[in-house]
């Protein structure tokens, strides 16, 4: 959570773009990561992330601070944008191009970290989970959100989130083991 977030949000709600810029800078990366892991292509992720923040800027007055960080609200917008994206997506996507683009993006990360890390396998395995499991896994283990925050984003009880998390981990292990990965 951003320091003095409530004050920053109030300023942004009064139409001050500088303050919204602070929120943008703070939350861009986690929201980008969340969308990228669900969409998988750089270009589409960028389009969606732009739409998410534009929508947040236009409707920031509707955000009510109820003890949850601003990120919960942003994740809600992101989740709905991703659902809309898949709902309206035409069947004209070239699978080969997508794979190339994925590899390109993840390869950059791999080169920066370690040649041996196989992020693509984890990313692809996560994409095979159902929507709730993907959301919980990304928010919990990649973004380090609390159960309370995740339950606010997904509109489910904390118990349900824990159950989804448990199933997500089991499914992920099964998927990776099925693909012959040794490190699990």
């Amino acid at each position, binding site marked *: 959570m951003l320091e003095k977030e409530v004050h920053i949000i109030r300023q942004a709600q009064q139409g001050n773009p500088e303050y919204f*810029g602070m929120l943008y800078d703070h939350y861009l990366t986690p929201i*980008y990561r969340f969308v990228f892991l669900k969409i998988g292509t750089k270009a589409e992720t960028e389009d969606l992330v*732009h739409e998410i923040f534009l929508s947040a800027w236009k409707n920031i007055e509707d955000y009510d601070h109820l003890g949850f960080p601003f990120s919960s609200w942003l994740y809600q917008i992101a989740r709905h944008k991703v659902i809309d994206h898949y709902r309206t997506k035409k069947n004209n996507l070239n699978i080969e191009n997508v794979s190339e683009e994925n590899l390109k993006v993840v390869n950059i990360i791999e080169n920066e970290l370690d040649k041996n890390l196989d992020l693509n396998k984890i990313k692809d395995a996560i994409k095979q989970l159902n929507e709730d499991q993907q959301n919980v896994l990304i928010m919990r*283990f990649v973004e380090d959100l609390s159960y309370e925050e995740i339950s606010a984003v997904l509109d489910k009880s904390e118990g349900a989130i824990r159950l989804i998390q448990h199933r997500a*981990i089991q499914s992920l*292990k099964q998927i990776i083991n099925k693909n012959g990965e040794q490190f699990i």
Partner: protein
Amino acid sequence: MGSNLFNKIKLLKQIKPEADFALTSRRIILSTTKKPHYQILFKKQLQQTLILSAAMGMAVILLLVVGQVSSLPLDGLSPNLISSLNSKDLASEQQNLDFNIQLADAKYYKESTTQVTMILNIDSDSNTIKKQADNLDSLIKELAL
């Protein structure tokens, strides 16, 4: 084993947007004109007023309905409906019903007994005729011999 998986998942944290995209998108978003603040405030006020009015309306309707039910003139209702609420009347109605059923049963038994007797008589008569016919047959046969 499990922690290894979590470590691998944590590596996904390295995914970041490109700096060019971040700057361009930020500039475009922040240059987007928003509705004037007074319009937004007016919209919010209007929404709140509508919600409050709807709630008040519902409360008034509920009060009217509850008030009317408690002040209903029960004396003006149909006597049958009122008697149906009295336990003594209900008990006497039940006794009358039982008595009527017993009368109907007695009538049925009486009629059915008469009918059965008549059928039995007819049957016994037919048996007698049959016996006489048999006797006649045997007589005819004897005569023929």
